[in-house]
């Protein structure tokens, strides 16, 4: 599903964000990426959807060398991904329904299909009854659930989440994790950067730890491993 080999990133100015990263993630895996702030997690995550291009190395997503793609092929590569951010990134002037439907309109899905599919994913994240609300009428947890709905509405093979629970209280975070578990159970691969020790420890999934731009640990059934 995801293969990184000998990936390094040196930003202009000389700071090394990642060094010699090698990773192989199987389809259907649930992987946490942990590490101190500034260790290179963000760079790592952004490379997966070609927001950041590594200085050396190669990255394969679903068998495609995403670094060899032409500019105009990138949108089609991203359609196979679902991306979730800490700050939700919803459109404030659109309803819950429109925010999710937006992702389908953008890839030019037919009208009939959009309505059915959007209602289905809103059901999945438990917000079907809020479909006519605006984001600012909802709690943080609810907003993140809409963002998740938007990320999975096009049936991605890989969901990439960058600190999805970073702005949420522990209880709400667990609700969100339940949704991720469900998505993962249906076969979708998940790569999640997080600082949430409690969640990482309790989930017992694969953990990749990055420090100073290097992978220092990669364990199945891993733990967070840092003192807060």
């Amino acid at each position, binding site marked *: 599903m995801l293969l990184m080999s000998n990936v390094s990133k040196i930003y202009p100015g000389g700071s090394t964000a990642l060094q010699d990263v090698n990773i192989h993630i199987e389809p259907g895996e649930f992987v946490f990426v942990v590490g101190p702030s500034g260790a290179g997690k963000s760079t790592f995550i952004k490379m997966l959807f070609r927001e950041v291009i590594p200085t050396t190395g190669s990255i394969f997503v679903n068998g495609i060398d995403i670094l060899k793609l032409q500019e105009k092929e990138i949108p089609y590569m991203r*359609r196979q991904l679902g991306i979730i951010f800490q700050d939700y990134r919803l459109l404030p002037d659109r309803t819950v329904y429109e925010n999710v439907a937006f992702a389908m*309109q953008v890839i030019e899905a*037919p009208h009939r299909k959009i309505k059915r599919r959007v209602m289905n994913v809103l059901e999945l994240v438990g917000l079907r009854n809020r479909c006519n609300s605006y984001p600012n009428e909802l709690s943080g947890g609810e907003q993140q659930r809409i963002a998740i709905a938007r990320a999975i509405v096009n049936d991605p093979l890989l969901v990439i989440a960058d600190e999805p629970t970073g702005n949420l209280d522990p209880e709400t975070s667990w609700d969100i994790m339940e949704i991720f578990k469900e998505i993962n159970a249906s076969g979708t691969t998940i790569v999640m950067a997080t600082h949430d020790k409690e969640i990482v420890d309790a989930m017992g999934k694969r953990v990749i730890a990055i420090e100073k731009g290097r992978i220092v640990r990669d364990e199945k059934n891993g733990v967070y491993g840092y003192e807060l």
Partner: protein
Amino acid sequence: MDMSFSTKEYFVRETYKSIRRNGFMSFASISTVAVSLLVLGMFLLIFLNTNNLAKYLESQVQISVYMLDEADNEELESVGKRLSEMEGVEKVTFISKDEALEKFRERLGDQQQLLDSLGSDNPFPNYFDVQVDSPERIQQLTPQISELPQVETAKFGQEVVENLFQLTRILRFGGIMLVVFLSMATLFIISNTIRLTVFARRKEVVIMKYVGATDWFIRWPFLLEGMTLGFFGAIVAALLINIIYSGLQTKIYATLAFLPLLPAYPLLTYVSFFLLVAGTGIGALGSYISLRKFLRV
């Protein structure tokens, strides 16, 4: 580009929303386009008419040969004979002083009292109307004719034609300069409006990129917005041009009937069509400039 119906509908809705959201800037853009295209259209009409007038005068194949008053009948007859023998001359008509006065009286119509002040004097000379076979022949024959005895002058429309062509050249140059300047101003304001739109929607653009929208999908609504602003500006300009030209024409027919104006139609249809294409094009170009600069998709 092949687009599904729901995509087109989406673009139209986005464009409409954006034009409304930018209310004042949209209005300013439409007005600027309208003013620019109005000036452009007026120039086009003036230019076409001057050109037409020059061509009309140039196509005249007539030389007027004015005789001195002291020429007697015999001399007149001999000049008339020599005129008709010249190469290229097709027809020579003699108009006497009395006939010339009579012709003028007819042209004056109900304003004949103007002539009363002349009393019994007849200011008109005897003259010959000489028709030649081609406009080129005029240049060659006129000097020869001027040399004939008792001829005061031989005239044709040459001077007027040359002046008119000079005027068209000036109009063309000035017009092009003005049009370039106005187009730049229009481009500037349209690209600014679109820049505001892009800025207002930058979050949306980022999200669109993350969910896999193609660059063209992102660009279309902005391009459509620019084109719509240009198109509406052009409609305003075209309407005004139609009203102004038709009105002007009625006025000119009433006072300067001899001026051969181009008829309003189909001329105005072409000019209006041209303005619509130009307006929409300027709108698209303005958006494109803005997109290249501010929307790195």
